[in-house]
């Protein structure tokens, strides 16, 4: 599925990286040990956790993008680290549930 199409559906804003890739599958969660073992390479990771440790987990698990729910943003230093590591991050006003409903609908189309 196209990240760019998703961005529109979620009214999301790209905080860093590029929205021109593709993603496959979703993981929702904020606990890093859980995310560490469950985020698959190339998926969309939906979370409200936005600290620097999220960047380390994303570096190790390589999701296609991180979607921050509920308008959560990242501090400048965290974004800089994400940018440096080529991680795409976007933020959406929608809740994690709404985001996943939108992705599910998109997958069915």
């Amino acid at each position: 599925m196209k990240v760019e199409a998703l961005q529109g559906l979620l009214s999301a804003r790209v905080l860093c990286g590029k929205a021109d890739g593709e993603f496959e599958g979703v993981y929702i969660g904020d606990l890093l040990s859980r995310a560490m073992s469950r985020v698959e390479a190339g998926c969309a990771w939906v979370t409200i956790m936005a600290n620097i440790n999220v960047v380390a987990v994303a570096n190790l698990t390589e999701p296609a993008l991180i979607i921050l729910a509920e308008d959560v943003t990242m501090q400048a230093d965290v974004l800089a680290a994400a940018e440096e590591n080529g991680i795409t991050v976007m933020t959406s006003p929608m809740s994690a549930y709404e985001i996943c409903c939108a992705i599910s609908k998109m997958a069915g189309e």
Partner: protein
Amino acid sequence: MSDVVKFRFDVDGSDFSSAGAASVTVKKKLRQLGYSPDVIRRVSIAMYEGEINMVIHANGGIAEVEASDDKIVIVLADKGPGIPDVELAMQAGYSTAKDHIRNLGFGAGMGLPNMIKYTDDLRIDTVVGEGTTITMTVLI
């Protein structure tokens, strides 16, 4: 790959923001060395959990990794408080992490269970008041 490639890192126990840096570096090196994505994923998960544990529970330590053509061995040694009840610590969901640590996303109590799940061998040498050394092996 007939040589053994070794890496060594000082893991800073006072800086949560750099937690995981050693694991990220090892991952990049293993990729350069040509290990399979599955092996790299298993090493990454296990080492990250061990590295985080040294930071949040033991005030840092030393991480050493030896990569050869049949296995990758990760040794994490700290001079922290030790683990009084290893069997209890291994239980999924068990954590002594304080609230300010949990707020950072740590403390799910899944670290040791993940380390067992993703490695072929895990050894815990721990002495209360002296420290903990965790040795993990991932077979290629």
